[in-house]
């Protein structure tokens, strides 16, 4: 039996502050990268035998 999928921990103190900061200062991925995401998504849809 493999190790179980771990729970996501609750954030406290410095970890919570850093997370809040990042969440409020979102830097969008570059356009070229977004295009790669779209291409990957199209690829995955094209090989799927079900609707994604």
């Amino acid at each position, binding site marked *: *039996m493999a190790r179980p999928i771990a729970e996501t921990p*609750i954030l*406290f103190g410095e970890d919570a502050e*850093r997370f809040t900061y990042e*969440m409020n200062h979102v830097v*969008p991925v570059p356009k070229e990268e977004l295009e790669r995401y779209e291409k990957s998504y199209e690829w*995955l849809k094209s*090989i799927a*035998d079900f609707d994604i």
Partner: protein
Amino acid sequence: MILKKLESIKTIKPFDCGDSDLNGFLLDDSRNYHQQFLAHTYIIENEFLTIGYFSLLTDKISKSDLDKNLWRKLRKDIPHEKHYDSYPAIKIGRLAISSHFKGMGIGTNVLNAIKMRLSANEEYAACRFLTVDAYKEAVDYYLKNRFLPLLKEPPQNSHTVPMYFDLKKAMFK
């Protein structure tokens, strides 16, 4: 190459990604996770082999303004009181690619596709973050793919590192 849902596959084709735990999750545990509604597993295969797989489940990221020790005390005294904020997420419980197919970009394509699918998801429930239970050996890979560690210092005894990607980063057009 074809992507299938685990439940549509009668017999999982041979798989070896070089990590016995990741192999074991797919071959021994993934069906149980599915049957218990704990995680859905998707398999990429060809005629002879399993090329890779990924398992997804719902998740949340919670943070508290309280000190960790105070929070523990409060939780004990007032178990139903909510002392933290939570944000919806989808977790990649496991993602692995066969050793025979490594270096072909399949894992990154899967990761990118999941980011795109979730960030474009406006028809069902909202989801802000993609989390991952990353094996320590894979942390650099996820950092390269813009995931951030949730903890400055991950638990010492843990074999995985909790990381996240803010889907809002991919929502700008």
